């Protein structure tokens, strides 16, 4: 049986901590766009999730 956490934000990757508030999942701060994408790919591959873009510079990872 597959018992993972689904439909839940597993990690947030941002370049600007101002845009993220509160907890519930780890938040990763990236220095630039390139680093942000790299972290997002790594975490999404490890967790089997999908990277979503909120179009304000915040990426988050969710498993569906």
């Amino acid at each position, binding site marked *: 049986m597959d018992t993972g956490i689904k439909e839940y934000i597993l990690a947030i990757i941002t370049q600007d901590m101002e845009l993220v508030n509160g907890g519930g999942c780890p938040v990763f701060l990236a220095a630039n766009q390139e680093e942000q994408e790299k972290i997002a790919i790594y975490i999404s591959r490890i967790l089997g999730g999908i990277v979503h873009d909120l*179009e304000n510079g915040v990426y988050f990872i969710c498993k569906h």
Partner: protein
Amino acid sequence: MVIIAGVLAGFLDRWILLRNDYRHYPTYPHGHLTHLALGFIAASLGAVAVPAIAEPDFVAVTFLVLAAQQFREIRNMERETLNKLEETKLVPRGQDYIEGIARVFEARNYLVILTALLSSTVVHLWGWPYALIAGPLCILFSGRLMSGSFIGDIAKIEKAELHFEGAILKVNDVVIMNVGLPMTREKILQEGMGVIIKPKDDNARLSLHAPGQRLAIIHDLVSILGTKVDINETELMPMARKQVDKGYLALFLLANEPDIDYLIEIIKKVPVLETTRGTTLSSFFGRKAAD
């Protein structure tokens, strides 16, 4: 002679109805053997019914009815197997499809019993040469009976364009999903295929509305054309989403064999599932509302 004719006709019927096709089911050779064996038992059941009644041996007839109950187990057996397989599938079949397959397997055995029964009756009444006519007729008839309708009958399928609006992937005007990584977006634009499935009437619209039917379409596509989904890389998962205002489906797929013409042909050949078939046009209010 009566029994042999019945058993032969029934067994042949089962054999012809048992096709190993692209849906990877039933497996070969063991899945085949199981069903042929059950088909043989079903054929024997049907064949001995008439001689038993003619005897007359009503105890034997009662036992036959009891034995026929066993075939209800086939549906459970198929459902269980397919459900087990579902757990490790990257692109699932969906419960509706599984239920459909299980029902078909059960129903085929009843057809076999019927074929055997009719053939042996004909032999009993008029002699064996007539079985040569009755047998093939029954087999033909059961083949006709078991073929349902296909997506190609209820919908029109057209090529469509994949494009992005910011992070949102769209097929024509239908939103599919939010794709975050620029790398993935580029890959989707280069290798992805999109089609629009337009239902021909209200019944078809309801059939396509069912998530089970969409899963069935996607499963058939993936089992022929392949997919670029892997364990822990589910970003390129094929998806079918509805245009909520107009009721048509948009489908998106990254296949190993990117051939859009065959993709359309495959979708046309996907069966319309019994459990999801829309029947609004056969209801009074459905017809009234449909204009």
